[in-house]
């Protein structure tokens, strides 16, 4: 299983993935996020960690995260490191399994909007290398 320290290396395709092993292809070819679940206390996390942040248990397995979630809060950002194209939209997305994750958003979804997982270019390094990660996209009403 991938650990956090594995994330962010340059991939063969000439891109930098910020999601690393947490972002995979599902059976249908669509994007899928894999987090962790503690087998002792059932705590779910994203990303997965080698140890449970609630009970210290190290019997932590992988768990696919729901692909859809609801925007808890979001903002359009106009500042920050050169890597991020300005403006960019980020937010917290609440998943039905109790996990909240931070992600770049697409389609400017408001608080309460349903969003769906996707994979996209989220930035560009100064040498032009695309930076990719998981994103959540507004679901057409």
């Amino acid at each position, binding site marked *: 299983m991938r650990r*956090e320290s594995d*994330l*962010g290396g340059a991939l063969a395709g000439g891109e930098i993935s*910020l999601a690393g092993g947490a972002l995979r292809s599902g059976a249908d070819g669509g994007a899928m996020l894999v987090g962790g679940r503690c087998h002792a206390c059932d*705590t*779910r*996390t*994203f*990303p997965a960690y080698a140890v449970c*942040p*609630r009970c210290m248990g190290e019997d932590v397995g992988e768990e696919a995260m729901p692909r859809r979630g609801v925007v*808890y*809060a*979001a*903002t*359009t*950002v*106009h*500042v*920050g*490191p050169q*890597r*991020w194209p300005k*403006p*960019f939209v*980020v*937010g*917290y997305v*609440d998943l039905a399994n*109790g*996990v*909240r994750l*931070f*992600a*770049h958003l697409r389609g400017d979804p408001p*608080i309460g909007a349903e969003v769906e997982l996707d994979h996209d270019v*989220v*930035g560009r390094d100064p040498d032009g290398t695309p930076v990719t*990660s998981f994103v959540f996209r507004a679901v057409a009403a």
Partner: protein
Amino acid sequence: MSTRGVSVVGVGMIPFGKYPERSLADLAWPAVKAALADAGAAPKEIDAAYCGAAFAGMLAGQRILGRIGLTGIPVVNVENACSSSAAALREAVLAVRSGESDVALVIGVEKLSKFGGGTIPLEEEDWEVRQGLLMPALYAMRAQRYMHEHGLTREQLAAVAVKNRKHGALNPDAQMRKPVTLDEVLASRPVAEPFTLLQCCPAGDGAAAVVLCASTLARRFRRDPITVAASHLASGKFVPGFRDMTTPEITVRCVKEAYEEAGLGPQDLDVVELHDAFTIAELIYYDAFGLCERGTAGEYLASGATTFGGEVVVNPSGGLLAKGHPVGATGAAQVVEIVRQLRGEAGERQVDGAKVGLTHATGGGIAGFDHGACAIHVLTR
């Protein structure tokens, strides 16, 4: 555990601003000398030093004290993000209370100009920081959520900056000394919506210092010592799932414990220096401190309750928004302001008859925490 009372007998700071040509040590030693002079303390009377800074590198306290020959005593360097020097102060209070130290020095210092501007650099190992989280974005999401839940308007939010810039205009130590109008705040360039530039604390450099001693020794130094009625530090709780971003759990917990330690409540406060890194923060902390009913902070500010002549003057120094926020220096600088207010030395921005003051420094943007650290001090005369 038998403990003894602790008093503040000396404070000093340099005006916050941009000093790119000065080293960290050269930023801080004038604040230390000012605090010693304010206490009437000889360097040899200081028996321990605690230095708070977030981006200072190794041995900041020794680098500073080496400039002025105040060396050889125990020195502890404290990093706790925006609470660094407030946490350092708490360590000094514990040392004096326990009898380990009789007269202790606290330094807060930061030199943000070395980064050349922009948002403060966060820890790259952090998962959310890697994905693009920045401090303005984190606070902006709190603001969006508070507006969504409580109907706070953009104008009510911007009014925090107008108030604190009005206060800062009266403070010779403030980085931003020009008052601004609501229209100017709203028309300044966008940073992270709903924040415009004037709703974000400026990056800058600064230093502040505090001399503490056992209360039994205080009148050796000054006839108007200020009592440390509570000194409290809390850490955030890691929550992998949902959390209410409009309720700063760490501050709610820390202030409750600080009130208990001091034996008083929000109705007793005359003056408060709180952590207004962005406009929404001040409003969320009105709620968290129990100054107003939850969700009504915008109306509470508009009523005039938190400016001069109101029931509790919040951030008379101008706060982080106007005085500035050289991260590690903030906690000590808040104590400098409250001590000056309680002594009646605050000049044009004096809060009439102030007897009870509170300082609040909290911060740290890391995944899973609302904040990493929060330190609260209650000071009385």
